[in-house]
């Protein structure tokens, strides 16, 4: 009966390798998801100056709205720490919304092809940001569930797979992304 311990050993090793690798895969997934958010935030920072450049000639009476957008962008870029950045990003989203509302009031702006395409890009980027956050949170949930349930929690605690933190947005980032209905 000398082969029984051998079989048990093989099974245990196979289980260990499989579980460990799946934990690594899940951890990489949520880390990568975090970078996806950054990519989209960066894209938004890059798009805003273009939009401001195009609309500023038309909007001589709306300097305040434009200034707010530019300031909010600056604050978001220089924000440090997750919660501060979350707040700054929400402010930026708000200021963009009021800019789009103003654009709606200027027929020649709405007709401008550049403005329309920049608006589409920004709407898309806004959506991508919230979907990237959603996917990040989904990935964190899958990962946390895995490392906290039996039996994977044994491996997780030995090899220091610690629970990941959720992205907590304001009320803003929790609601369904509402794109303009056109």
């Amino acid at each position, binding site marked *: 009966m000398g082969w029984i311990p051998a079989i048990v050993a093989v099974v245990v090793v196979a289980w260990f390798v499989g579980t460990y690798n799946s934990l690594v895969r899940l951890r990489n997934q949520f880390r990568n998801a975090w970078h996806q958010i950054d990519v989209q935030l960066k894209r938004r920072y890059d798009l805003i100056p273009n939009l401001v450049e195009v609309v500023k000639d038309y909007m001589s009476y709306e300097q305040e709205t434009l200034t707010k957008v530019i300031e909010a962008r600056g604050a978001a870029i220089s924000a440090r720490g997750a919660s501060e950045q979350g707040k700054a990003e929400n402010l930026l989203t708000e200021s963009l919304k009021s800019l789009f509302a103003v654009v709606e009031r200027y027929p020649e702006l709405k007709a401008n092809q550049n403005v329309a395409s920049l608006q589409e890009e920004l*709407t*898309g980027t806004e*959506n991508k940001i919230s*979907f990237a956050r*959603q996917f990040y949170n989904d990935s964190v949930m899958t990962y946390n569930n895995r490392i906290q349930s039996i039996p994977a929690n044994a491996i997780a605690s030995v090899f220091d797979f610690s629970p990941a933190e959720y992205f907590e947005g304001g009320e803003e980032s929790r609601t*369904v992304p509402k*794109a303009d*209905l*056109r």
Partner: protein
Amino acid sequence: MLSFYEAAAKNLRRSRFLFLILFLLFFALGSAIGNAYGNAGYGVALALILYAILAATAWFSGSSIVLSIHGAREADPAEHRRLLNVVDEMRIASGLPMPRVYLMESGGMNAFAAGRRPREAAVAVTTGLLDGLNREELQGVIAHEMAHIKSRDTLYYICAAVLVGSIALLADMFLRGTFFGGRRRAGGGSGRGSAAFVLLGLLFALLAPLAAKILQMSISRQREYHADAEAAGFTRNPLGLASALEKIALVGSGIPGRNRGTQHLFIVNPVRRFTEASTALFSTHPPTALRIQRLRAMAGKGGFG
């Protein structure tokens, strides 16, 4: 409900099984025809060569064949910005790589996804769909297609399309007597051989529609409900897809290059009309009204996540 991982593993298994069935079919046929000519070995060899060509075509260019049957052209980054953005949004929400995006010229509203694996997937929509849907509805449709890609339904669907297609092809070949045609002796010909062709041709002509039916049954309507539910999970907005399905049912889902071999690929069956006999045993898709009802129910509960 199956997780994506389980669903993908199951679709991979089922696809391999289809290729195995096709292999056995060709093997049996090759030896039968070879026997009619007095040499089973040649028959088997030729049948297996044909099988290899078919299987390789299905595996390596199945998606591009389907795309070309339906006259799909690649989306233009400038012209179809909104579509590309919505696909990008949904690939982020689903955690998949970006698929290639195609358009089919048609007033009908429809969409399908293809591809062996997520890395080389493609999504195609009709121009009618693009013009008729608002952004939220488009998101719902694209999310549904991404769910098919993520669970590898697309792999199985392509394999199934090839299986049915090749049986139809065989029926055609036998009836026209071109199969093994090169081996016919000049002059006298072989009476036994010709008789075998006709018989096999008739057999396959009978078999082809049957195979199509079996395919339709094997493509579980459950997969459509599953993709709908996952799509709602990606968008967190089941009403978008529900309202898209409503519009599609109203406008019609016609596509260029109607083809019974590919009907199961689409978000709404382009051949069958769902107002009639829609719960029939043999349909590839559940009735659209039921799908809308289920999506609405999800929104009422508001419970995903």
